[in-house]
């Protein structure tokens, strides 16, 4: 398969008065054409920062890419000038943000906001741009698009606004769509509609999607592959089946245990005790050690090597290391 995005050893820090927050600490991610990759993790694990960094949308200062590369279709985004990045933004890569209530400019009409991107990047007339925008509104399921184009964001509901934001992101036919918690601010019925919309769009346009979320329900519905992030690192990646049926990292297992399930009635939810480590001074070893039910001595000292469990499934955990297995076997 065609690799569209390749992130290698990405380090991102935010320099604040209190010190340097190491938000992303060596992330490796790959994305293939036409697939949906979900990045999951709790608040502050670095998933949004990673996503924003792909288009260089991290506010700088204080944010800074310290190390690593982001190759999009062979070009290293970290080395491009701002002007070159602007030619990619909205054209090859588009982004959808969390809160549709604030993602649209309240003082401009929907039509204006939909068409300004395509007018900027393509040499087309205002009329053609309008046509495109109306097509997009049809695609995302907004009724009466002609009239709606002249309206302002406050005249739309939350779900409608998110559809508009999606239409806006798709208008230049991007190859990669990054959705940063696109359904978090919406109620459950609207969530389901928006997710169906994502699937429809992917079928019709073949766009690759990076979906950032902390909602495992969404992940189970739409993701092909999943990357679980914790304290600025990707601790486990795998296909949807691998992550949901064979989670290998104790954190992934903890996440899955803390989600209510319809097929197991009356089971108690098991929360993960404790809080994530302070990223001002991240620990040397595995950052999950303090919360891990199976932590070993080595965990707190040395960060685990990556263990490849299958071609698609990899985990950063000492428990999966060959040597740990031998040790566990001998002690039994």
């Amino acid at each position, binding site marked *: 398969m065609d690799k569209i995005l390749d992130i290698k050893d990405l380090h991102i820090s935010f320099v604040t008065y209190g010190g340097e927050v190491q938000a992303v600490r060596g992330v490796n991610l790959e994305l293939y054409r036409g697939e949906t990759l979900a990045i999951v993790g709790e608040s502050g694990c670095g998933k949004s920062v990673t996503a924003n960094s792909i288009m260089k949308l991290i506010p700088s200062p204080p944010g800074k890419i310290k190390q690593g590369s982001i190759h999009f279709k062979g070009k290293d985004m970290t080395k491009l000038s701002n002007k070159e990045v602007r*030619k990619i933004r*909205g*054209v090859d890569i588009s*982004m959808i943000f969390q809160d549709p209530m*604030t993602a649209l400019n309240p*003082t401009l009409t929907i039509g204006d906001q939909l068409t*300004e991107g395509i007018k900027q990047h393509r040499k087309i007339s205002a009329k053609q741009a309008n046509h495109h925008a109306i097509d997009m509104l049809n695609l995302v399921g907004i009724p009466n698009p002609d009239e709606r184009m002249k309206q302002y964001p406050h005249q739309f509901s939350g779900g409608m606004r998110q559809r508009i934001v999606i239409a*806006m992101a798709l208008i230049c036919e991007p190859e990669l769509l990054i959705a940063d918690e696109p359904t978090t601010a919406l109620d459950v019925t609207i969530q389901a509609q928006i997710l169906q919309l994502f699937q429809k769009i992917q079928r019709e346009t073949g766009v690759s999607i990076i979906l950032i979320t902390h909602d495992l329900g969404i992940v189970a519905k739409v993701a092909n592959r999943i990357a679980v992030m914790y304290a600025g690192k990707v601790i486990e990646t795998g296909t949807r089946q691998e992550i949901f049926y064979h989670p290998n990292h104790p954190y992934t297992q903890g996440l899955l245990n803390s989600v209510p399930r319809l097929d197991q009635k009356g089971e108690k939810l098991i929360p993960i005790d404790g809080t994530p480590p302070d990223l001002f001074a991240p620990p040397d070893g595995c950052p999950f050690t303090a919360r891990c039910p199976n932590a070993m001595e080595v965990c707190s000292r040395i960060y685990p090597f990556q263990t490849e469990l299958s071609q698609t499934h990899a985990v950063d955990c000492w428990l999966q290391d060959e040597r740990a297995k031998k040790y566990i076997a001998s002690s039994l």
Partner: protein
Amino acid sequence: MAKYILKRFALMVVTVLIIATLTFFLMNLLPGSPLNEERSTNEAVQQNLEAHFNLDEPLIVQYVLYLKSIATFDFGPSIKQPTETVNSLLSRGFPISAELGIWTILTAVISGIALGVFAALKHNGLIDYIAMTVAVLGISVPNFVLATLLIQELAVNLDIFPAATWSSPAHMVLPILALATGPMAIIARLTRSSMLETLTQDYIKTARAKGLSPVKVIIKHALRNALMPVVTILGTLMAGILTGTFVIEKIFAIPGMGKYFVESINQRDYPVIMGTTVFYSVFLVFMLFLVDIAYGLLDPRIKLHDEGGG
């Protein structure tokens, strides 16, 4: 919209009426009258004069006569300058005051917004600190102090601009500077803080994610939203500039309306006091009305009508 304007118009009439009534009775509470002076006049002459200006009528009759003059916008002759009518004074003074006022507002708004935007974009940088120091100074120094300082330095010592009067563009520089600095400083500070807030909004990120140029993001997406608070205080600032013109016109010997206003109070020239007051209030109330309309145009969420109406 039409209903809103109509309602606002009715409110404006009431406002002007209240101002006019208050001015009339306060003016009559002042000791003395326009006709008593140091030198004693003949009793008969005095009575004739009073009759001529209707000053011998009971107060309530004078009030009704005065309301009539407002309705017809004809304030009659000046008592102290018998060759002039109030209307002729106004029509001579107003263009000059308006010129001073308009240039002052333009200067204050344009430079204030520019200063605020640059300060916000270079947040915590050198430009920011310089701009905000200038702004604090501008707010703290009263315009009459600034006016005299400007005359001393730029007119007397350096001889770049003329010190007073109003005859050429060069004459206009110092009064406009003196009058515009305060409002400019207020606008600059307001624009900066509101711009800083706007730049962190999600829709700015959306605009950047579309690949728009920084200039377009700032002017099209940020500035329009950042200017809301500025438009809100524009009405108040205009009132400030208006009263500022009294002082500045006096200092720079500018023959505008402010001069007649101040003189008429000193001389108890009743028709001129009433005429200028009503004129100023109508003007200000109308400006505030324009600001409200502008607010509605800038922000589509603000609807210019009341609940139930349209």
